[in-house]
Each structure stands twice: as structure tokens, then as C-alpha cells.
């Protein structure tokens, strides 16, 4: 071990405080240079008159509570906190962003740094509780490999040679272009003037959508934008949009008597993770039955009442069969379906449904899913009889070719059983609403400065049916193809697209190609496998250092707002992306500057809240405190202090039943065909189109939706989003029906001879069976590879967190021991090394594109009966090489190994070398399954099919 205390050299000793000769010479030479340069570093401030060592500052009040500054919580607000070693510790309410759940947090700042994170007890969602990931948020801020300064490439793209730039110079480079590594790049100002659509903004979990849309679309005029939704839930959102209108559903599990979970690991990784998890446990304690259909015994499955292993991609078959049961069986002498809801709020009749679903018997579903018919019947009956009940679905359920159809079917089952928009059932999302200061003030008062955004058509894949949330994993292929144009400036924001989607090798090949991407700017907190391909990297402020208004889906069942505010100022030159937008707009000047009048992100966020408060006053509404009392004080001050602003005082159910006032419908149009009340003017639809095309046929008519006529009464209904559906709960979907031909073209070659009925069913526009094509060609020695998340990691943005990596840093492949012995030999044992090889079936719609070059990975085997025998399960999270020391397991300074007490405990000390090839297993960092998952989108939704890959396994000799 290295001795950390250097041995002082023998020096000539002089009188204390006086310079000895040798020191004087050394210092004199350096001083001469320093005085000459004239720009010496001064970072510290020396208080005049100070000097002698002083006593430490007082710890605050006698109880250890410091006096709070404005906007800071006090002991009574947060249940107590302590100073450490006499240091002042202040509490700042904010919002977590380790995962998408956005829990309310309290960040404790001590001596200028963040010392601890706890849950905010005032937040209605998480009620003071947070998970391990949230508490490890400190690691994001203090990651020693974090990007603190802009970096510009000085070598070839991807070569890893950089130099630091000041933030000013870096922003100039983005705005005005210039020379990078000997080549010229075009800046935003030039693009703004010549072809704004060639500025592409591609974001990961940004949570600043208003500001980014204002900058890029409204002000700059580019709609060329990519997101990351199809990695997670594009198919789910489409299934929701065609039925209930909005894209996000909330399962009110706290009040459910029966919870059916399909492919959703909600105790570990749900989009509402910590707060749906605590409510599920409360429901279980209150006697609810919870059944989990999953290919894997996740911690969720283990904690629920019953785990039903299911073959990947066949959940749809089980749900169709359960719907059949609910429609037809009456075990207690009464229907299990809700005829009132069906007749009033859907666009079908019970008879129509019975006829369509008759084919989907439990016995048929058994042949597809492998689940015994009796189990399907029993659970279907239990679900139908236990009201209220709810069906929870997520990525394990929708990350398939048939994901959108499955979600459509799940929503239908909830609706048929009378479990929709009811207490304890499945509800349309409630989220808080805030005015957006850019939209409300700036754009409206400066309309002439705004632009109608143009875009390159590269985000929606190639010949997909309804990619309402795009197909992000296919964007690089679209850019390589070039038929729809290429971006001149590609800016990523906290998006590691080359590694978080499939075909990683192909992604990097495209992203590093300067012909495809002339100028790549990455804005991120830390280096990534994608940022390696950038020309310029800007350091982003972490979520604990920046501003936003959050409106997470409310599992409290009423709307509220949350603040995200800096717990501490950004380190280094890191900058809030919203401030970067302001800085860039000011550089571009003209209308861009006019449309960005706020000096900082904080000013913009404050203006938004103050506008909402003013709007409340105008409408005779109010914010409420966390104790559900009308807010009597300044909204901004309360928001900063407590972190939340409530917009209702209690749960809201039956939201669609809200009757509209006469003033709501005055001057609006009722569409004859659908009964939709709408405002064509708001939707920018001409009178002629209103007459000739009507609501459903007019472009983006849904943006003018007001309500729905039902039996002569105007209701709020199920408000549409993204498509022109009615305000009914549409079980029959013309939108899904319209994609039937494309689906049939894909799957017809994979159907059995006796499955001619599949085409007919699809054409009926009701939820129908669609098999995953590749799975039909699977042989008995092939497995289906699925991926999953664990409770201490986020998909791809937590591996720089030391505390989390210490807990979970490699990811053995789960295989059932019976399967392992059959395919790999009777002597296969836990921990043996295996090769997982993708066996790509030729799919008719692939047309030779998206064929990954990396065809296999290696992994350690984990033998467990907690996985379906036809499955190999490999988690996400692992296998990074460019994401800092913790994610990559690479020592930055070998001479420091074992240096500090903490360093000795780091997992990689035992085995020093990280893998050289990230496709191969590493004990330190595992391996990522994305290398061999094809990016081919699901045809209907554009979903990344993370759970469809057919593979073979073999031993590594």
C-alpha cells in the first residue's frame, strides 16, 4: 500500500515565517513568471480582518436546528434533521430524477455540498419514502469522473482525444460553428437562417420538455426531435391512446381488491416505482390478492400472492381468454362484466364482444402461453368477481411485436369488467398543470417571432403504422439511409442512444460517421458510449443542481405540482440545459433572443408558477398546501419551501363523467359521426374540412377536443391525445384496424395452417391475437432472450453511482436448470461461462436493414427455477466501458489501487482487469444484452422489441 503521507525532504531550516535561501530562490523564479503573466488564480475569498484560527460556527439553535433561510425547510416541516460536527445543515425540497418516478425529496446541504437525501413527507406520491437509487443520487453529483467542463475533440471522432474549452467558447462554437480538429462545423445561427430542420435535438430523460420545445420548435423552427420512449413503452402508450385517449394510466392499487400484473416489475422498477410499490404492499396487507404473470420470478413476483410463469409474448392470449371468461361466465349468478359502462362509455355492445371473443378460450390460450387452461379460468374468474381490480402492465408486457395489441386488450378487459376510472381500478393519469411562461407570455406576445417547425422525417421509422411516440432505436438507420435528410447539427441531451438501444455496434458505426453526422454535440452529466462519438461535450447540471416543474402521474389520485430546484449550485462549469438554451438564443440573437427573455432557468420557472397562480385567481381556483388547506401565502415561496403545490384536495374518480358547462360548449361543433364536441378553430381545421372530413378525418382534430355527447348530455369523456378518437372508451378501434393489413403481411408466413381466422379477427377492429413472428419459427433448442431491471439500478443512467454499482455490477444470465442441462449438458453448473448467440429469423419487413454485426455475447450462467424454461433472462444496466470508473471497472490511476480505506472495499480490487471487449463477460461489469438485440421496430407502434430475441446458447470452452 502506498504511504499517503509523503516523507518530507530534508530542508534548510530557517526562522519560522522567514524564507530560507533555497525557498526564496525557488519562489522568486516562480513569482517572476507569475507576475509577468498577470492573471494569477484566485479562487478563495479572504475575509478582511480575519486571520487567526477561530472557533467553529455555532450549530444553530439549541436543538441543532439552524435558522432557515427563505425557501428552506425547518425541523417541524420535515420531521427533524441534525447538523454534523456542528456544521450548519439546511434542507431543500426538490424532486428525484434517478428514475422517472420523480419522488419528492429533501436534499440536505452542508458546507456547500449535498450531504444526504431523504424523501419529502409533503409529497403526496411517495409520502416521505424513497428507494436506494434515490439516496444514491449524491453519487451523480460527486462522481469523480463527472464532466465538469466542456470538451472539444482534438483527434478523430471516437478516438478519445479532447481538450477543455471554457463554457463561453463552447457555446460560441455551438452557436456560430468553427473549426474542430481541423474540420469546419456549421453552428446553430447559420442553420437557423438556412434550414432549421437540420438541427436535431435527441433527448433521454430530460424533464424540461417545455423549455426544449420552446427553444427548438417554437423559436428555432425545427421539429426534428428524437426521444427515447420506444425503448420503454411506446406500445403501451399507443394501446392506451386508442382506447382511453391519454397515454399514461394509473393503477389505484392502494384500493384494489385484486391486482393482475403482467410483465411489470413494480416493486423494483416501475415508472411510479416507490409510490406504487408502497401502495401495493398496503393493498396486500389489507387483503388484496395479487397475481403476477412474468417470465421471471422478479422480486415483485416473489412478493405477490401468486407467480404464473408465462412464455414471452403470449400475455395477449391470456388476456383475451380472461376477457372471454368475464364476458361469458357467471359463477355467482350475475355477470362479471359491467354492462352499464360498456353501453354508456364504449363503442361496442356485449353481444359484439361475446361473438368476437368466443374463439379465445382458456384452452386455446394454453396452447399459446403454456399456462394451464384451468389456471387462466380461475384467475379470470377471480379478477372478474373481485371488484375493484386493476391490471398493471409495463415493458415486459409491451416490449414485443404485439405489445400495442396486448395493451389494447388489457385496457379492454379493465373496461369490460367495470374497473376503469374507478376507485381501486385503472385510471387515466392525473398530473398537475402549470402555465408555461414561455408559451403563455413570450410566444403569445411575440407571435411574429415564432416559427412553424419543419422537420426531417426520421423519427418515425420506415413504414410503421402508428408510431405516436416515435421509434427512437431506428433513427440512426434512417439517418444512415439518408432518404429523408440528415441533421447538420445533432445535439443529444442525456441520451446514450448508441448503447441503450439494440445493435450497439451498428449504432456506434453510424454515429461516429462524419458523413452522416457532421456535427455532434452531447450534453450530459458524464461520459457515455455515445458521447465518445461527439465533437463537443457540454457538462450538464445534475438533477440536484437544476430547475424544473414536475407533474408526475399522481398515485394519490389528485393533481399536484412538484419543484425541482438546486440543492447545491452546479459543480465546475456544468450548466442547467435550460440556461444553455437561453445562452444559445442570446448568441443567435434576433427573434431567438426575443423569445428567450428570462435571464436564467430559475426566472423562467418562477414566472411559470406565478402565471399559474394568477390564472387560479382569475378562475376562482387556488393551490392547496400539503395539508390540503387553501394556500394563503405566496405560491412561489411555498413551492420552494415545501416542494409541492396541490391542485385538488382529494382523489378524483369517474373523471369522464364530469358534465360540461354551457360556457364550455358554447360556439363549439358537435361531430355527427362520433358525438365529439370540438373546436375546429383551436385545431386549425377549416370550415370546409369540418364539413367534408369531419372530426375523425381532419388533421390533428383531437387538439380541438372539448367533450363527448352521450345520451344527449355533454361530458368531459375520455379526452384523446395524439389521434382523432372520440371521447368514448374505444374498444373497437378504427386506428388499430387500419394497421391490420400491415400486421398480416408481417405474420402470415408464420401462422399455422389452421389460423386463417387471425386475419378475419384483425379486420374486425377489436383486440385480437397476433403472435410474435420469430417465436413461431423457434426450434426446441432455441430460447427467447428477455431483459429486465433490478431494484438498485436504472436502465442506463445509474452505473456511475458507486453505491449502486457496489450492490449490482454484473448480470449473470438466468436459465432454468432443466433447460440448461438439456441444452448445455448434465454437468452444467452455476457460474459456468456460456455464449449467447442471436439467431435472426428473416423477417419480411426488415429488408436487410438492422442486421447487427455483433452476433454473440458471453455471460456467466445463473441456474434458477425462477425463470420460464424457454427463456434466458439478462438484465440491463451492465457492460459499460465509457461511463467512468464505477460503470467500467477501470482504474484511473493504477498507482492508487488500495490507497484509501474505501478504495480497498471496491469490488474490482479482487480482479483488476475489466473486459477489453465489452461484448464479452466481465466479472467486474457483466455484459449488456443490447449488443445482440435487433433494433427492428414493432410494426404497429415502433416499440423496441427488447423481449423478442431468439437465441441459442452454448458453452464457452
Amino acid at each position, binding site marked *: 500500500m502506498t504511504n499517503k503521507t509523503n516523507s*518530507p525532504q530534508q530542508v534548510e531550516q530557517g526562522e519560522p515565517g522567514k524564507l530560507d535561501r533555497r525557498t526564496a530562490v*525557488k519562489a*522568486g523564479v516562480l*513569482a517572476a513568471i*507569475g507576475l509577468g503573466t498577470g492573471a494569477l488564480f484566485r*479562487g478563495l475569498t479572504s475575509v478582511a480582518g480575519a*486571520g487567526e484560527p477561530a472557533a467553529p460556527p455555532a450549530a444553530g439553535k439549541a436543538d441543532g436546528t439552524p435558522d432557515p433561510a427563505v425557501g428552506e425547510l425547518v425541523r417541524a416541516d420535515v420531521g427533524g434533521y441534525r447538523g454534523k460536527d456542528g456544521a450548519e445543515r439546511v434542507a431543500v425540497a426538490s424532486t428525484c430524477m434517478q428514475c422517472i418516478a420523480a419522488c419528492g425529496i429533501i436534499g440536505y446541504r452542508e458546507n456547500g455540498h449535498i450531504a444526504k437525501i431523504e424523501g419529502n413527507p409533503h409529497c403526496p406520491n411517495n409520502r416521505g419514502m424513497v428507494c436506494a437509487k434515490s439516496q444514491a443520487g449524491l453519487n451523480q453529483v460527486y462522481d469523480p469522473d463527472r464532466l465538469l467542463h466542456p470538451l472539444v475533440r482534438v483527434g478523430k471522432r471516437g478516438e478519445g482525444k479532447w481538450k477543455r474549452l471554457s463554457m463561453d467558447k463552447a457555446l460560441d462554437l455551438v452557436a456560430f460553428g468553427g473549426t474542430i480538429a481541423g474540420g469546419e462545423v456549421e453552428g446553430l445561427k447559420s442553420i437557423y437562417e438556412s434550414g432549421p430542420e437540420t438541427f436535431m435535438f435527441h433527448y433521454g430523460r430530460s424533464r424540461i420538455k417545455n423549455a426544449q420545445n420552446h427553444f427548438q420548435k417554437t423559436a428555432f423552427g425545427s421539429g426534428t426531435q428524437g426521444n427515447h420512449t420506444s425503448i420503454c413503452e411506446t406500445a403501451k402508450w399507443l394501446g392506451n391512446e386508442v382506447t382511453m385517449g391519454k397515454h399514461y394510466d394509473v393503477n389505484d392499487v392502494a384500493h384494489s381488491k385484486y391486482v393482475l400484473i403482467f410483465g411489470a416489475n413494480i416493486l423494483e422498477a416501475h415508472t411510479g416505482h416507490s409510490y406504487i410499490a408502497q401502495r401495493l404492499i398496503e393493498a396486500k396487507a389489507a387483503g388484496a390478492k395479487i397475481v403476477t404473470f412474468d417470465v421471471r420470478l422478479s422480486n415483485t413476483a416473489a412478493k405477490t400472492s401468486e407467480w404464473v410463469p408465462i412464455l414471452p409474448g403470449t400475455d395477449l392470449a391470456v388476456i383475451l381468454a380472461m376477457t372471454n371468461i368475464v364476458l361469458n361466465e357467471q359463477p355467482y349468478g350475475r355477470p362479471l362484466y359491467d354492462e352499464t359502462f360498456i353501453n354508456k362509455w364504449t363503442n361496442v355492445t356485449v353481444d359484439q364482444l361475446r361473438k368476437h371473443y368466443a374463439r379465445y378460450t382458456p384452452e386455446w390460450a394454453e396452447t399459446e402461453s403454456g399456462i394451464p387452461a384451468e389456471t387462466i379460468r380461475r384467475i379470470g374468474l377471480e379478477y372478474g368477481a373481485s371488484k375493484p381490480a386493476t391490471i398493471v402492465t409495463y415493458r415486459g408486457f409491451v416490449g414485443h411485436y404485439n405489445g400495442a395489441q396486448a395493451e389494447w386488450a388489457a385496457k379492454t378487459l379493465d373496461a369490460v369488467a367495470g374497473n376503469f376510472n374507478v376507485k381501486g381500478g385503472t385510471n387515466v393519469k392525473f398530473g398537475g398543470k402549470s402555465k408555461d411562461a414561455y408559451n403563455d407570455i413570450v410566444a403569445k406576445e411575440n407571435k411574429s417571432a415564432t416559427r412553424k417547425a419543419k422537420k426531417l422525417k426520421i423519427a418515425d421509422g420506415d413504414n410503421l403504422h402508428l408510431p405516436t411516440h416515435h421509434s427512437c432505436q431506428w433513427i440512426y438507420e434512417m439517418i444512415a439511409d439518408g432518404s429523408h435528410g440528415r441533421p447538420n447539427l445533432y445535439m443529444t441531451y442525456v441520451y446514450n442512444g448508441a448503447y441503450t438501444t439494440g445493435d450497439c455496434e451498428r449504432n456506434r458505426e453510424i454515429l461516429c460517421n462524419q458523413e452522416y453526422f457532421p456535427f455532434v454535440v452531447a450534453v450530459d452529466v458524464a461520459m457515455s458510449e455515445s458521447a465518445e462519438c461527439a465533437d463537443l461535450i457540454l457538462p450538464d447540471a445534475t438533477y440536484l443542481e437544476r430547475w424544473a416543474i414536475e407533474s408526475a402521474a399522481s398515485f394519490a389520485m389528485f393533481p399536484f405540482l412538484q419543484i425541482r430546484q438546486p440543492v447545491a449550485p452546479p459543480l465546475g462549469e456544468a450548466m442547467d440545459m435550460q440556461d444553455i438554451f437561453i445562452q444559445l438564443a442570446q448568441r443567435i440573437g434576433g427573434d431567438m433572443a426575443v423569445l428567450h427573455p428570462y435571464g436564467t432557468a430559475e426566472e423562467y420557472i418562477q414566472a411559470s408558477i406565478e402565471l399559474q397562480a394568477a390564472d387560479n385567481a382569475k378562475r376562482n381556483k387556488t393551490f392547496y398546501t400539503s395539508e390540503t388547506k387553501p394556500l394563503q401565502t405566496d405560491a412561489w415561496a411555498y413551492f420552494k419551501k415545501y416542494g409541492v403545490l396541490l391542485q385538488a384536495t382529494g382523489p378524483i374518480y369517474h373523471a369522464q363523467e364530469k358534465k360540461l358547462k354551457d360556457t364550455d360548449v358554447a360556439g363549439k361543433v358537435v361531430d355527427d359521426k362520433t358525438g365529439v364536441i370540438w373546436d375546429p378553430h383551436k385545431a386549425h381545421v377549416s370550415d370546409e374540412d369540418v364539413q367534408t372530413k369531419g372530426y375523425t378525418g381532419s388533421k390533428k382534430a383531437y387538439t380541438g377536443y372539448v367533450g363527448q355527447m352521450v345520451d344527449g348530455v355533454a361530458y368531459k369523456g375520455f379526452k384523446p391525445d395524439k389521434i382523432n378518437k372520440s371521447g368514448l372508451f374505444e374498444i373497437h378501434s378504427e386506428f388499430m384496424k387500419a394497421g391490420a393489413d400491415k400486421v398480416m403481411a408481417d405474420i402470415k408466413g408464420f401462422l399455422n395452417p389452421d389460423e386463417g381466422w387471425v386475419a378475419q379477427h384483425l379486420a374486425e377492429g377489436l383486440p385480437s391475437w397476433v403472435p410474435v413472428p420469430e417465436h413461431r419459427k423457434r426450434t426446441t433448442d432455441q430460447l427467447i432472450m428477455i431483459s429486465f431491471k433490478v431494484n438498485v439500478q436504472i436502465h442506463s443512467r445509474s452505473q456511475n453511482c*458507486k453505491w449502486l454499482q457496489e450492490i449490482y455490477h454484473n448480470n449473470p444470465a438466468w436459465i432454468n436448470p432443466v433447460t440448461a442441462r438439456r441444452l448445455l449438458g448434465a454437468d452444467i453448473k452455476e457460474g459456468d461461462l456460456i455464449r449467447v448467440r442471436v439467431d435472426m429469423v428473416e423477417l419480411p419487413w426488415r429488408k436487410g436493414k438492422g442486421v447487427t454485426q455483433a452476433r454473440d455475447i458471453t455471460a456467466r450462467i445463473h441456474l434458477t427455477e425462477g425463470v420460464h424454461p424457454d427463456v434466458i433472462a439478462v438484465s440491463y444496466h451492465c457492460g459499460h466501458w465509457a461511463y467512468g470508473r464505477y460503470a467500467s471497472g477501470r482504474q484511473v490511476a493504477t498507482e492508487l489501487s488500495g490507497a484509501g480505506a*474505501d478504495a480497498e472495499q471496491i469490488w474490482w480490487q479482487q480482479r483488476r482487469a475489466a473486459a477489453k471487449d465489452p461484448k464479452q463477460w466481465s466479472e467486474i461489469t457483466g455484459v449488456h444484452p443490447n449488443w445482440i438485440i435487433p433494433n427492428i421496430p414493432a410494426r404497429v407502434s415502433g416499440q423496441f422489441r427488447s423481449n423478442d430475441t431468439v437465441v441459442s446458447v452454448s458453452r464457452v470452452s
Partner: protein
Amino acid sequence: MVATALRLLASIFQREADRPLLEYIKAHRQELLTSFGLDPLEGLDGYDLDEAVDALAAEYCRIFVGPVGHLPPVESVVLGEGRFWGPSTETVVNFYVTRGISLPEGSGLLPDHLSVELDCLAILEERGHHQDAKAFAGEHPLRWLTDLIAHVKARATSAFYPAFIEAAQGLLTARYGG
């Protein structure tokens, strides 16, 4: 004189060298060689000044900034605490606080960055608080400079940063060691 010297070293490690700095170093090259036995411009003779500035910017990044294989010149990281703002940072901050020295909030600087610690020593020198400076140097920069030097030497492709990090250690040892 010592304070100015410390601030020069702080400037060198705070960010990459600029043209004026290189010009002055060039002018004092022989004196540096005589005083420290170090030639920071060794290996840069083939470059003109602008090229040297560019080369040193890449070198600074490679050694201290990253994004890969670097080691920030920050006490908590070099001491193996595995993070910015580790326990040693808190000790440093407490020292500043008790001496009426502060890091302006929002400056983005880390209190235990080598530059800031050298700046602290400069302030103490200006105050004439030699014993205080000696205590701080012994408990902080002199505890970790050797390891930083090893890293700098391992990563450097020119003599510039190894020379100045050794000069820093030489000056601090001469002034505060023993």
C-alpha cells in the same frame, strides 16, 4: 513572493496554459532549470507557441479532466475516497471556515482542488501566518502530491506538467516540510 509563486502554480493546475503564460515560462526557462532542475518546455521545442498551447490543452485534459484515464487534482479523489466532496474535502472546508476564508458559492470550484489549496496557502502567506500554512500544507497538499505526481508522470507525454507538479512539491517541501 511566496504567495505569488503559489498563485502561479495554482493557475497552472487550475486550467490549461495560455499563450502569455508560456511566453513567460519560455523567458524564465533557464532559471527554472537552475532552481528546480526541471525543464517544463522539454519536448515542446518543435512547436510554435500556438501549437504548444494546443498541445498542452490536450495534455491537461488527458491528465486531469478526462473523460477517460484522468485523475482530477482533487484531494478527496487522489486520496482514494472515490468521490468529489469526500471526508478530506470537509476537513479542508472546515479549515477555511475557521480562518475566515471562503469559496464563493456558485464558483463551481472544489475546495480541495490543488489550485484552491495553493491559493489558501497564498492567503496565509500574505497574512504572515507561516505556522498555519505549514500545518495546512502538511495535512493537505503534501499528503497527496506524491501520488498525483506519479499519475501525472504516467499520463504525461511532455515535461510540462511533471515539471510543475514537481516544482510545487519542491516549493511546498522547502517551505513547509520538516
